[in-house]
């Protein structure tokens, strides 16, 4: 296996994690990873060195943007009984954070996940999204404020019900 393929393969678990958080649904997430890998392998000859990791995150981020754009015209449904007030601990927190992520606009969600979950630098995220670093920072700040508000809102609501 070529060094290029090896570095692509080594990234699969991290790409799956990012896609899972980005798309929520695990099948859709793996579809995204699959398409990312197919594109990467096809472009192997075009890849003239550089950071494979950033490049893969770029492909996946763009594919998800396209996917969401194509879904935008379909009606959105919210799960009816997603909220289990008896749940506690990390499992409930995990659902909270997933739901909070889902309320973010696409670019903010991508920035938040690339920085906080995948540990990319502001510079790398700026390149991935094709925007200046300042834009990355303001997206990140807004995303954090929004998620914080959603998480706190849910807790308050939960306490009120109880």
């Amino acid at each position, binding site marked *: 296996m070529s060094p290029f393929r090896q570095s692509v393969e080594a990234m699969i*678990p991290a790409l799956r994690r990012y896609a899972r958080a980005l798309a929520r649904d695990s099948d859709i997430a*793996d*579809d995204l990873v*699959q398409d990312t890998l197919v594109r990467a392998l096809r472009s192997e000859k075009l890849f003239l060195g550089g950071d494979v990791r950033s490049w893969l995150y770029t492909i996946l981020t763009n594919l998800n943007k*396209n996917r969401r754009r*194509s879904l935008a015209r379909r009606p959105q449904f919210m799960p009816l009984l997603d909220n289990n007030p008896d749940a506690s601990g990390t499992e409930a927190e995990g659902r909270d954070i997933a739901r909070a992520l889902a309320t973010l606009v696409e670019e903010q969600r991508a920035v938040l996940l690339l920085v906080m979950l995948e540990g990319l630098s502001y510079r790398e995220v700026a390149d991935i999204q094709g925007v200046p670093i300042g834009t990355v920072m303001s997206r990140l700040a807004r995303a954090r404020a929004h998620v914080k508000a959603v998480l706190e809102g849910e807790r308050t609501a939960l306490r009120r019900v109880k």
Partner: protein
Amino acid sequence: MTDPKIPVTEDELHAYVDNELPAERRGDVEAWLAARPEDAARVQSWRAMAEMLHARYDSVLDEPVPKRLELEQLSRPPRRWIYGAVAAALVAFVAGGGAGWIAHGAAATPSVFQSFTVEALDAHRLYVVEVRHPVEVPGAERAHLQQWLTRRCGWTVYAPELDSAGLKLVGGRLLPGPAGPASFLMYEGPSGERFTVYSAKVTVETTQMRYAAQGRDSAMFWAEKGVGFVVSGSGDRDRLTQIAKLVYDLSEKLGG
């Protein structure tokens, strides 16, 4: 505790948490936070958020990688919904800019034609990406498919032979149309290119064939004897025109 000489900005707080802050500034930020419990609480909440994300998603790293993601398995063409964005842009074109030139058509009522074409493109976008269940009735049961769709739709539905254009019938399904049931047929070429033929009742009698395209996706649509047709596909205009004309000619011949 004294404040640092230069006030710490919001951006610097984020950069501090993300380890993006120049080392020489860290001390200033830490002093700032020690003096400002509210900022310190916010910084703490961001750290907690990162922990929640890792608690929720790190388990994915330990899952075995599914077979379909193994690099050896991935020599096949990409899934078609990559191009969904293009179809969406086309829909926007049809719904927006398209209104003007549809209105040029003598008999066409723009609103009906628009919603009709939008429905057809939605269906196209939805089903061409399906690998395992693209249709309800497979193309091998062409006679049954035609009978069934004819009975449900209320006009004579034909699934024309497009072999001369290199396409074979994948099959069809029944869909809800703008004003009653719609028939949806899918064809596939040797390289996996897919075209769909959507037809439903429309209030206009007959219109010319019209074309809309952006990027890779395009549609040809027309109405004939109160039934509207939309042939959608990705590919160049000539290819789509060829197929649409063939559908038109064959439907005309069979239906005439």
